[in-house]
């Protein structure tokens, strides 16, 4: 069975390896630039706060790739890569055999369908994990300068391409492809369902599940007090409330103090609008009861969240594979 799996997929394996090599090359080339830019920023901006030499803008943190599209573009590719193995190897695994009628050949040899599925799906899942793992490892190195600069590794879009979770995504995509192929029995519709299902699962988990793995920490403070969570935290929401508890409007093209439009602050604080105006005692007194809050996931939870998210996708994949096994064994071939 292993031999058959290898023989059937050796062409795809070669293509997959070539694509992986191309992606690795892209990551290494842009990654090396990122590293050197990062070192330039550190050395140039260590002593000065304004513009350093060589055109480095220290006030905005330097800006790796100077705000160009490279980092965003590469990140987008990395978000999409885990689904590819499931799309082009997983979906056809059962469906293409049904289309060619070869299930009637393969399933009349001396091994059971359960064994056929176990060995074939096993190797493909391993390939998917390797595909996701190699890309995740390289991406984690590639992203380290931007993470160090922006502390953004916990944010959706960055969290999703780092460390462990891409492996789980690739495994889920593979299981989804195999299951869709077994249910639909036609390759192209199975690929469409795999793509749609993968996007739906990723979006749903990112938007509605991940923020609640552990209940977020909310810090409430006086409007005038400063607070900044440490490290690469994930900001869920922040805002300001007046003494009545109402959320204050976001500033829009008007003078701002403490993150809110000055026009919506008490009159005693009107002086804040002038460039020289400080927080007067009367203003400070008038601001009693105004609160500012930050809801966030602390940086220390990063690995917990990686683990939970990996678990969620591995469990989903296990459910899909169980469904596949039941369908293949129970349904007429």
């Amino acid at each position, binding site marked *: *069975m*292993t*031999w*058959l799996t290898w*023989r*059937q997929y050796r062409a795809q394996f070669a293509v997959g390896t070539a694509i992986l090599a191309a992606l690795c090359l892209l990551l290494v080339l842009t990654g090396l630039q990122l590293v050197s830019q990062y070192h330039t920023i550190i050395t140039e901006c260590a002593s000065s706060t304004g513009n350093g030499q060589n055109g480095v803008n220290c006030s905005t943190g330097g800006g790796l790739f100077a705000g160009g599209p490279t980092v965003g573009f590469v990140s987008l590719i990395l978000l999409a890569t885990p689904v590819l193995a499931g799309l082009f190897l997983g979906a056809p695994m059962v469906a293409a055999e049904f289309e*060619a*009628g*070869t*299930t*009637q*050949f*393969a*399933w*009349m*040899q*001396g*091994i*059971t*369908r*359960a064994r056929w599925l176990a060995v074939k799906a096993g190797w493909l899942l391993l390939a998917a994990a390797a595909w996701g793992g190699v890309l995740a490892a390289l991406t984690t190195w590639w992203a380290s300068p931007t993470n160090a600069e922006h502390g953004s590794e916990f944010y959706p879009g960055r969290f999703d391409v780092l460390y462990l979770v891409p492996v789980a995504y690739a495994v889920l995509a593979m299981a989804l492809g195999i299951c869709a192929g077994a249910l639909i029995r036609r390759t192209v519709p199975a690929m469409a369902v795999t793509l749609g299902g993968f996007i739906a699962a990723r979006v749903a988990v990112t938007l509605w599940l991940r923020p609640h793995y552990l209940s977020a920490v909310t810090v409430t403070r006086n409007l005038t007090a400063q607070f900044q969570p440490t490290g690469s935290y994930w900001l869920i929401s922040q805002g300001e409330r007046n003494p009545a508890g109402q959320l204050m409007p976001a500033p829009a093209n008007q003078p701002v103090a403490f993150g809110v439009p000055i026009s919506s602050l008490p009159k005693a604080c009107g002086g804040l609008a002038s460039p020289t105006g400080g927080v007067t005692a009367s203003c400070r007194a008038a601001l009693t009861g105004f609160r500012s809050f930050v809801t966030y996931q602390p940086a220390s939870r990063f690995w917990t969240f990686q683990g939970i998210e990996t678990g969620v996708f591995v469990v989903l994949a296990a459910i899909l594979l169980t469904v596949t096994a039941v369908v293949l*064994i*129970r349904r*007429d*071939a």
Partner: protein
Amino acid sequence: MTTVIQTRGLGKQFGRVTALSDCDVTVPEGRICALIGPNGAGKTTLLRLLSGLARPTEGEMSVLGSTPRQDPAFLAGVGFLAQEIPLYRRFTAEEHISIGAHLNRRWDPALVRDRLKSLNVPLDRAAGSLSGGQRAQLALTLTLAKKPRLVLLDEPVAALDPLARRHFLATMADAVADDGLTVVLSSHLVADMERVVDHLILLSASHVQLCGDIDALLAEHRVLVGPRKDTAAIARTHTIVQTVHTARQTTLLVRGNAPVIDPAWESSEVGLEEMVLAYMGQDAAPAISDLTSVGGET
């Protein structure tokens, strides 16, 4: 004598469509059994049920002493070749032989190579580039190479020209003679395989019309030709399978060995094709003039 296939009340429904109903058949060991029936009679369904690829919706069956199931021992005993001759298009014959060697406990690669060489099937070309006859020969040889005790072939000769058809049946007959296996092969024509088969299952409209050894079946059927008259007297002692009236005479195909006393009837033996057509006629449009009644339960 060992019974290889035995079914009781076997049936298969696809939604509301009945593909096979109340099917009772028996095939003893060592027979080459023709499964005959018009298109859509349920031949493929029966073969797929026997192979274990599909599950029945009613009834029971015993194939090689057990219910068809997902079990290596059962799968090793049964070879099935589907009508569409499924092979991996990009794989060569040699690679198919390797698949078989990896997936079967009993497997004889040397035998396959010898047989394919003698049939001029190239071992090193992709199956998709072989001719229809070569593909069928390759698939049959692979089916036989796992040394099954029962081989189920679904319309194996339908796509072949007469010469390839003869080669194919000869390959199969050789294998039966060498290994003592049991074969069921389906076709909508009995003439294709009259020379090699010795057992018959006749399906029509999802029901079994006839099942038995061909010699025995022929011995219990007779053609009676007589003047056009009432057939009630015959019907009391025989089962009338088919009645054909022309302007002056009546031809009957009857089942039963009771003597016909009325000297007006001339009795003669029936040919296999004639008998099969009479039973199959249930579905066919009346091609003969004045066809008044046809069929009858066995």
